[in-house]
């Protein structure tokens, strides 16, 4: 492993890879700080720009946007009480209180250090787990993959923040959308409505730009808030020894929680911050300080979200199953470059795998070195008026969609999905299951059809392999656990109505 890591560093330190790593983490921090566009929208926007890069450089940059946004999200949480990302919600509670007490500097520095330490340990865990898991995954056949993908999708919908029923509906829509284009086996077009532009299926970039970029902007326009400007002082950028003593165990616990929950499909990183905050409050000798500027309340969640951001790469790199939408974008980037993510990636493309791992180390150091001195710039970025920012983001999305193929059709696709994404938010539907199901849909269909061909039509093939049976069993249990209370509640309401 050490030999491979050295090889990875040789790849990561190549000038272009280093440049794209720095660019990725800086852009990630920027989108974490800025309202109106998140890491998924930014990754979709930049995906076409990676077509001309090497697969390693494009993956390094896109991954940098993902974990860089975790850093950036904490800046707005601490300074203006607005979480830049969903994973920074818990940081608002104590981070903003520290800021109000004139301790914004130590809060920002602790968030950066906790993220760095957690990120670094999470990479070690990633290396330790991804390789053996990838070796095991080489034995998986179509039934195992089908069951794992089903379990992943059900788990993602299970962790939906809104309605479980609606989340599954969105997953079904995602699978349906993935079938647009040529059928892999017969070679005949499906749901293309005679449009040549749909023969290759719906392009992921304009779709995600619409669902996350355009929809986010439209949604923000409805919000009356016109941006909140940070006016306080940052203070010195060094936590005191007392702060470190208080936060050291919080960082360790946050790292472990984030690493474990980050592997789970769905909102593992978000969930981990809530769990980490709760655990810190429970373990604290002074729980009454929580909510009033406790540094443990910043260190724990920040460590957990960064650990989770990196452990989420494990299922993607070793199994080829993206556990969340951000990983789905990396999955798409690999596919665009003709590389199938999964167990063979480590064997056939060690430069990509180990280069990415090493770039995570490099990126984490870059974030620490660049972000703390640049905090003044991020504060200034926060002061850009929304009346300037939102039209600019819209224009970038329009240009981004058009530049993919130089076709106005991609702009129409983006706007169509922008409307779908906007209305989905308003109607209480989550977009993540749709995107993940869309990305996995092709492989899910292929695995299902191959399995049924192998078994001559017998569904028992999904239960003969222990792994497949366990994965499907988990999926069924999760489904039942959600629908039974729903049925009970429905019956109660009906009886009351009678």
């Amino acid at each position, binding site marked *: 492993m050490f030999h491979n890591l050295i090889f990875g560093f040789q790849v990561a330190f190549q000038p272009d890879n280093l440049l794209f790593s720095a660019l990725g983490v800086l852009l990630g921090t920027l989108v974490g700080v800025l309202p109106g566009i998140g890491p998924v929208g930014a990754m979709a926007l930049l995906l076409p720009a990676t077509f001309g890069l090497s697969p390693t450089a494009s993956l390094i940059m896109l991954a940098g946007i993902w974990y860089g946004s975790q850093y950036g999200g904490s800046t707005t949480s601490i300074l203006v009480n607005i979480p830049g990302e969903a994973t920074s919600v818990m940081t608002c509670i104590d981070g903003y209180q520290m800021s109000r007490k004139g301790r914004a500097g130590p809060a920002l520095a602790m968030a950066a250090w906790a993220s760095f330490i957690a990120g670094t340990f999470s990479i070690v865990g990633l290396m330790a787990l991804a390789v053996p898991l990838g070796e095991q995954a080489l034995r998986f056949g179509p039934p195992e993959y089908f069951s794992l993908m089903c379990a992943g999708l059900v788990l993602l919908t299970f962790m939906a923040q809104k309605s479980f029923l609606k989340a599954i509906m969105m997953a079904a*829509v995602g699978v349906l959308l993935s079938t647009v284009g040529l059928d892999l086996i017969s070679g005949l077009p499906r749901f293309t409505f005679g449009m040549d532009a749909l023969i290759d299926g719906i392009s992921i970039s304009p779709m995600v730009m619409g669902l996350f970029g355009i929809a986010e902007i439209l949604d923000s*326009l409805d919000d009356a808030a016109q941006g909140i400007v940070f006016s306080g002082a940052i203070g010195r950028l060094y936590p005191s020894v007392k702060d470190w003593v208080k936060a050291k165990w919080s960082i360790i616990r946050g790292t472990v929680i984030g690493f474990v929950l980050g592997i789970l499909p769905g909102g593992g990183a978000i969930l981990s911050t809530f769990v980490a905050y709760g655990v810190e409050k429970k373990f604290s000798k002074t729980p009454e300080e929580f909510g009033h500027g406790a540094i443990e309340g910043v260190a724990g969640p920040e460590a957990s979200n960064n650990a989770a951001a990196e452990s989420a790469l494990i299922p993607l790199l070793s199994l080829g199953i993206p556990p969340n939408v951000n990983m789905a974008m990396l999955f798409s980037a690999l596919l665009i470059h003709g590389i199938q993510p999964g167990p063979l990636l480590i064997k056939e493309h060690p430069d990509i795998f180990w280069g990415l791992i090493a770039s995570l180390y490099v990126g984490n150091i870059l974030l620490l070195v660049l972000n703390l001195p640049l905090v003044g710039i991020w504060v200034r970025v926060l002061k850009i008026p929304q009346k*300037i920012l939102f*039209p600019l983001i819209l224009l970038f999305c329009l*240009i981004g969609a058009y*530049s993919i193929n130089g076709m106005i059709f991609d702009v129409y696709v983006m*706007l169509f999905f922008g409307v779908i994404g906007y209305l989905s938010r308003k109607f209480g539907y989550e977009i993540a299951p749709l995107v993940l199901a869309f990305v996995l849909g092709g492989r899910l269909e292929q695995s299902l059809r191959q399995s*049924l061909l192998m078994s001559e039509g017998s569904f028992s093939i999904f239960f003969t392999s222990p792994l497949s049976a366990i994965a499907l069993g988990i999926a069924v249990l999760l489904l039942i656990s959600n629908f039974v209370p729903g049925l009970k509640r429905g019956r109660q309401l009906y009886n009351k109505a009678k």
Partner: protein
Amino acid sequence: MKTLDLTSSLFWLFLSAAAFAGSLHMGIGTVESPGMGFVPAAASGLLGILSLVLLANTIVKKLQDVTADTISTIVGRRSLTVLIGVIIYSILMPNLGYLISTFLLMTYLYWNMEQNGVKGLLRSALYSILTTAASYYLFAVLLNCPFPAGILKF
């Protein structure tokens, strides 16, 4: 949310029925040899069933809850006007060309965000000229993005 759920469940139900019919038309094959309509039929079938569950839940809940949002109350005026502007832009861009259409769009967007009468319109037009020129230089000149020239050939 009840009216919204009712509307959305009916929409998904209609969509799933159409997709299911399309899948049957493509041919779902047999379990031994699934056809190209097999997975679309399964996905649209699942969507249809879940839409019916949502519809039934909504109808039952509606007996309890009289508060209801409608589409007109949740869709903001500004987002709607911006969306219309962007749609018109995407239709006009291939014919008018990047420079003219982007200038018009950005003027409209800045002005829409500012909402400050004629004075605001002039300032928006100024911002728009700068944005259009900068974006053209960055994407068309430096990055060779092939923007449409339009009827005026620039």
